[in-house]
């Protein structure tokens, strides 16, 4: 949304322009992706249940933060390319390759960038382990054991730095991810409404149901 909000100075609006918190955790047997569901245009909440975690392929997902139109088009392009790769090479696209492809698409638009901040996460077929990559709007790729993006990411990082342990399984990690987003909802105005979480492991892409998410007991 490109509505100019004149009620507040720009440095405040900049806090919520990418009003979102997303996070991704690498686990011993896969990855967990989590995000809030608020879409904000300046200080206005335009949509309260946006799905910011998108399935690109059975073994690959991406979280989106930033401009919705740019992100949706990028997701569509990634889905198309992943499909073509799988059909022609007869194996699922490696996660690092997908991340590199995304990065190339973004860098091609270097002078008029797609306003997005992406986490690409999936279960790599060749290496048989989970991998996550942080891709910024110009296409730089970095990887870590856990990543968070969006306006609430400092809050989420605070929680993750203390609670994340290497070698957790996906069944332990999704609780940490959900609690991290809940912390960001409590302490960041651009983040809110509810939480979505996805597990990607050798069995594929699985969105967590409301019952499982509620059982974590995260308060916001």
């Amino acid at each position: 949304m490109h509505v100019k909000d004149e009620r507040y100075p720009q440095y405040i609006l900049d806090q919520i322009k990418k009003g979102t918190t997303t996070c991704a955790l690498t686990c011993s047997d896969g990855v967990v992706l989590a995000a809030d569901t608020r879409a904000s245009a300046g200080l206005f909440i335009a949509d309260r249940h946006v799905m910011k975690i998108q399935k690109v392929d059975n073994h690959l997902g991406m979280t989106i933060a930033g401009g919705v139109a740019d992100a949706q088009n990028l997701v569509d392009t990634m889905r198309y390319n992943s499909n073509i790769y799988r059909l022609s090479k007869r194996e699922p696209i490696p996660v690092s390759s997908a991340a590199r492809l995304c990065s190339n698409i973004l860098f091609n638009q270097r002078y008029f960038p797609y306003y997005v901040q992406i986490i690409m996460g999936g279960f790599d077929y060749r290496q048989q382990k989970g991998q996550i990559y942080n891709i910024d709007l110009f296409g730089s790729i970095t990887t870590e054991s856990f990543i968070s993006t969006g306006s609430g990411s400092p809050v989420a990082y605070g929680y993750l730095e203390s609670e994340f342990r290497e070698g957790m399984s996906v069944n332990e990690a999704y609780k940490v991810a959900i609690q991290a987003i809940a912390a960001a909802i409590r302490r960041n105005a651009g983040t809110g409404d509810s939480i979505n979480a996805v597990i990607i492991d050798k069995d594929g892409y699985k969105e967590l149901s409301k019952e499982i998410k509620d059982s974590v007991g995260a308060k916001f």
Partner: protein
Amino acid sequence: MAFQFMPGATAVGITYHDGVLLAAEKRISYGNFVVNKNTKKTFNVTEHVGAACAGMVADMQVLVRQVSALSKIRKLETRRNVEPNSVAKLMSVIMFERRYFPLLTQVVVGGVTTGKPEIYTLDPLGSVLPDRYAAVGTGAEMALGVLDAEFTENMDEEKAKDLALKSIKSSIQRDSASGDGIDLLIISKNGRSESSFPV
């Protein structure tokens, strides 16, 4: 001259039991001058899908004409009615192609063909967000105040109509760029109807 003043508006979309209801007010104002009090911001894209828009009137009229024509071709090719999600996606593609010089309009597009009634909101760059009810334009915040409080799932047509009129009346009272009457477009499994209401 229009470009200097981004026209305000309010448009809402509500899904109800049998279909969708799209409503918009009828004012075009360039800054403080009211240019037109009888503008139609609700459009029939196909027989079963409609759109209500807010923003630059030229852009919304051109967009709807383009999508309407392309939908007619698609209907002839596939020999079935074009679904609301197809219309939304088509609009999205057209709008994103113009990313560097966007169509300055926000759209609520909705309809019902064989399945459930659906509405989608599109921003000027073409993002598509599905919802059960939506409001766009400068008066959206006021309209959503009413809709958030009173919307329920599977309303009947009378209740949905009252809710839509109430939410736009609310915007008209508190947004000076909205006013001069309300157009209502109802698309249901039984057919489609348009009506106008003064304020």
